[in-house]
């Protein structure tokens, strides 16, 4: 509940940043909208039409009103409504993030559990060394290496753009390399977090009890240790969604994946302020929503935190 209340100032902060972004813009939106041939009168009329002559506080209120109606403005570059462009790109970004999580989270949890169970042995060292390596690799390095070998040299998989819906062959083939890239940088952190969590639980009393009453080792690890270790792991994975988002922006750029991240970067580099603002609002809003969802899952998994 407290987190739910926290989301309100966070959201307001995001909206304020979005609003300020439109204020510092060097170009005057009224002049842009009026076009190069407009007279001063026309510009003034548009200005009052947009509410640009009102105090900033009023403008902020107007801005919030427009947002509520789904009006995010129009791209300066190609005049396409920002909301429409966002609608087209949110899906592919979610698709990419899910496709990355689907394989990297189970693999990370498995690797972390094995490492914790074999603590101090060579398998543990190997997993830990690999995960330190994995968290040190720049996403774009992994992406470029995959493109060079799998895409270019061996010509096995496509590496530019989305191939269509996931249930088609082309769509499925096209998402493999981006999902391997993005998931690849996620396995390391998940493995490390799981190892720490499982180590904590393996030392706990209920595990000792389970062992003492003669349960097979497999049951002890899977049913008693892993299950309780999942609580911190789920939270930490939720916290790492931001990290995944950062990776997604880079991955989309490398693979020309038509997602929000690539749209955001393109908009910022071409000074398309309304578009930049819209993408940042969507990314921030999505991130807040994910955090809230994780909190809800957390309190559902662990009744003790329901305070």
């Amino acid at each position, binding site marked *: 509940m407290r987190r739910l209340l*926290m989301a309100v100032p966070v959201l307001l902060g995001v909206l304020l940043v979005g609003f300020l972004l439109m204020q510092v813009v060097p170009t005057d939106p009224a002049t842009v909208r009026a076009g190069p041939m407009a007279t001063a009168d026309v510009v003034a009329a548009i200005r009052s039409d947009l509410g640009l002559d009102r105090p900033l506080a009023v403008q902020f209120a107007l801005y919030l009103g427009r947002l509520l109606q789904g009006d995010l403005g129009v791209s300066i570059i190609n005049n396409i409504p920002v909301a429409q462009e966002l609608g087209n790109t949110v899906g592919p970004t979610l698709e990419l993030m899910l496709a990355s999580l689907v394989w990297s989270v189970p693999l990370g949890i498995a690797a972390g559990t094995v490492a914790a169970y074999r603590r101090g042995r060579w398998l543990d060292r190997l997993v830990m060394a690999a995960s330190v*390596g994995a968290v040190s690799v720049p996403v774009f390095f992994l992406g470029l290496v995959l493109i060079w070998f799998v895409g270019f040299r061996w010509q096995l998989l496509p590496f530019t753009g989305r191939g269509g819906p996931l249930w088609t062959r082309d769509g499925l083939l096209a998402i493999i390399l981006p999902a391997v890239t993005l998931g690849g940088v996620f396995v390391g952190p998940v493995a490390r977090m799981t190892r720490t969590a499982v180590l904590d639980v393996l030392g706990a009393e209920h595990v000792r009890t389970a062992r003492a009453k003669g349960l097979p080792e497999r049951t002890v690890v899977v049913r008693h240790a892993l299950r309780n270790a999942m609580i911190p792991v789920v939270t930490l994975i939720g916290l790492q969604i931001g990290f995944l988002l950062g990776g997604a*922006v880079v991955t989309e750029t490398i693979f020309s994946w038509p997602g929000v991240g690539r749209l*955001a970067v393109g908009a910022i580099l071409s000074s398309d302020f309304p578009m930049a603002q819209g993408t*940042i609002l969507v*990314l921030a809003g999505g991130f*807040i929503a994910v955090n809230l969802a994780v909190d809800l899952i957390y309190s559902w998994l662990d009744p003790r935190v329901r305070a």
Partner: protein
Amino acid sequence: MRLLRRLLRDPVTGVALVLAAAIILAALLAPWIAPGDPAENDLSLAMQPPGEGLLLGADDQGRDMVTRLLYGTRLTLVIGAVSVGLGGGIGAALGLLAGFYRRLDGVIMRCMDVLLSFPAILFGLAIAAIFGPGVLAVVLALSVATVPLTARIVRASASVEMGRDYIEAARAVGMGDRRLIWRHLAPNCMSALVVFATLRFGQVILLGAALSFLGLGAQAPTAELGSMASQGRTFLFFAPHIAVVPCAAIFIVVLVFNVLGDALRDALDPRLGF
């Protein structure tokens, strides 16, 4: 000294320590040890592969990759150090205040929670959108993203220290708040801060490189590892070394500092959970 000896007991850590020193030294001395000027180009050498004459080859403009690498590492390290220093400094001060003054605790930590609600990449995008892409935008974004993390860690160790007897004793002899914080509380929170800063340095370099790779950081022709990688991406199929050299450099720098951070944590306080 004892710490150093303990660190060197593990050969991997020893290697990481030596490498870290070498990297920092090479970056500091770049203007003196680099074979040429990072902007100097010879188009007849463009995209020349490593080996023949040039150790790491030349980039698409015919600039020597060794020189670019040294200067690029220098700028990348500076960006990382300034961001960790600035963000870590502000965060540590806030964390100490929150740990020391119970009345400020709630306000400060709620503000930090709000900042923590955003991934660093979003700060990068927003700040680059407002101020325009550039090194400054990257440093600002990475600093802002470092503040709340540092504040949390320092506050946690400050709260533990506040319960210790020496604080009570210092109070009893009439020591003023400021002296108490700086002379007694702060030094005792240092080990957590040092471990965190080392690990954060690697993360910040990775994040900064990603922002630069996207074009939001250092602008051409400035040599910076992330933007060099981005430039190399264009010529990936003709001259892969232009991208591989800076990418590998980033990987090595980050790996070295991550290994070092892990080792420091194990040596200083294995219970630190980050």
